[in-house]
């Protein structure tokens, strides 16, 4: 009973919020171009779903490409950092610098440097997304149980054996947690890059549709695109969480 209530709570809360929103918009007769109600947003989506869905697909393609690159790059750099202190000292500050630099600031440069638009978007999204995979995997590789490391040494294990049989599998849960955060960040990065590219006339992705709708004062359409983005973000977070749980359960459960 209590659990079910808890499960239903966000939906009830959302519905009440939507109801209040719609009621207020009707009651106060707020113009559509200032704040559309949920009904108008759904109607806008229904009237334009082909274009919006295509834009969503384009954004998601960039997101997944960036996530794939982030995972590969993050793990590779984390391995290098785990293998040598020199590599750690060399890589760590640059990873942090890249992480704290706002991508909005460097996206225009990247879009100029990288001629191919899709590639430019992936590069931007990767810059935003790769850090959690890197830092989590590095933390996981550093957190190998000391006793097991001793056991490997006692039995004359090579570095390679220790890496493959112990450190990588021990770091897997950390990597998966990082991947989940990186997934949502890749979406954010893709959208930010699209905004920059979109204002430069590159027409693709949800961010471009948001910009376009804003220019034309099609505010309900703009909101519809925003809702799609939010849903996509939640889906990515949920799917990656599920993937991580299933994978670890499959591996560690009897």
């Amino acid at each position, binding site marked *: 009973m209590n659990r079910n209530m808890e499960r239903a709570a966000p939906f009830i809360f959302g519905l009440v919020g939507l109801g209040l929103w719609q009621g207020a918009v009707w009651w106060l007769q707020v113009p559509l171009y200032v704040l559309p109600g949920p009904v108008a947003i759904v109607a806008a989506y229904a009237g334009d779903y082909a274009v919006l869905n295509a834009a969503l697909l384009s954004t998601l393609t960039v997101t997944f490409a960036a996530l794939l690159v982030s995972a590969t790059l993050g793990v590779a750099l984390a391995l290098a950092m785990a293998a040598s202190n020199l590599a750690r000292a060399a890589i760590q500050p640059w990873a942090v610098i890249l992480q704290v630099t706002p991508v909005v600031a460097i996206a225009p440069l990247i879009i100029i440097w990288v001629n191919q638009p899709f590639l430019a978007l992936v590069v931007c999204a990767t810059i935003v997304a790769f850090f959690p995979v890197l830092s989590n995997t590095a933390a996981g590789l550093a957190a190998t149980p000391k006793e097991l490391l001793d*056991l490997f040494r006692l*039995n004359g294990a090579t570095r390679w054996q220790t890496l493959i049989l112990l450190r990588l599998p021990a770091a897997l849960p950390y990597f998966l947690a990082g991947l989940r955060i990186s997934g949502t960040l890749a979406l954010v990065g893709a959208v930010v890059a699209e905004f920059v590219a979109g204002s430069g006339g590159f027409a693709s992705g949800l961010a471009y549709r948001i910009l376009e709708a804003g220019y034309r004062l099609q505010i309900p359409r703009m909101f519809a695109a925003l809702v799609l983005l939010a849903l996509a973000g939640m889906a990515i977070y949920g799917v990656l969480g599920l993937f991580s749980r299933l994978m670890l359960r499959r591996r560690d*459960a009897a």
Partner: protein
Amino acid sequence: MIVVDGVSKTFPNGTAALDNISAKIGEGEFIVLLGPSGCGKSTLLRLLTGLEAPSGGQILWPEGAAGPGDIGFVFQDATLMPWASAAENVYLPLRLRGTSRAETREAVMAALAQVGLAEFANAKPAALSGGMKMRVSIARALVGAPKLLLMDEPFAALDEFTRFKLQADLHDVWRRTGKTIVFVTHSIYEAAYLATRVLVMSARPGRVAADIINPVAEGPERRTAADYTAFVKTLSDVLRKVMPT
């Protein structure tokens, strides 16, 4: 025979953990290092592995030094790899030495059978109780036929009943295999039950305060025999004298 010859250990922060420890570890002995926390018994065990060097003195093996696989180690926690089955965990030391799964299957199964877990070969650690995990850990330490088995308070985290059973089973394993074992504990009862010889250690810095042969006869009544109670009292008296007040 392994000779611990005047071994001292001072940590980089200046703490003197061990001071001039000398002892001989004869083949087939079950030596228990007994002492209060901070007496350096775990440090001594670690020096015996050779993973860490003493600050003074030396540890002499008959052939000079311990090689890979010469030492089996059981930690306070079972420290199994959670992603690997019991059999895979036990197979680990053999695998690291480059032997194949096929040629070691029998050895792995025998080691599991020795600790009473033959039916649980394919179980992952998550499905095993604390006592069973410790059994797997012991099987993993035994599988490579090490010359020396080192155990660092392996039963301290278990409940009383599981501990009694595991102590009895370990004692059986020792009697059947004649392994040389060095076992660290802070439990007087555990020491009196398991040991053939007890080294009582004093704290800060760790010294050997007494080296006592266990007089209690082998057999099923070991834990209830009158001389067991007497031996517990002897050990308690020694410990009382070395405990910092």
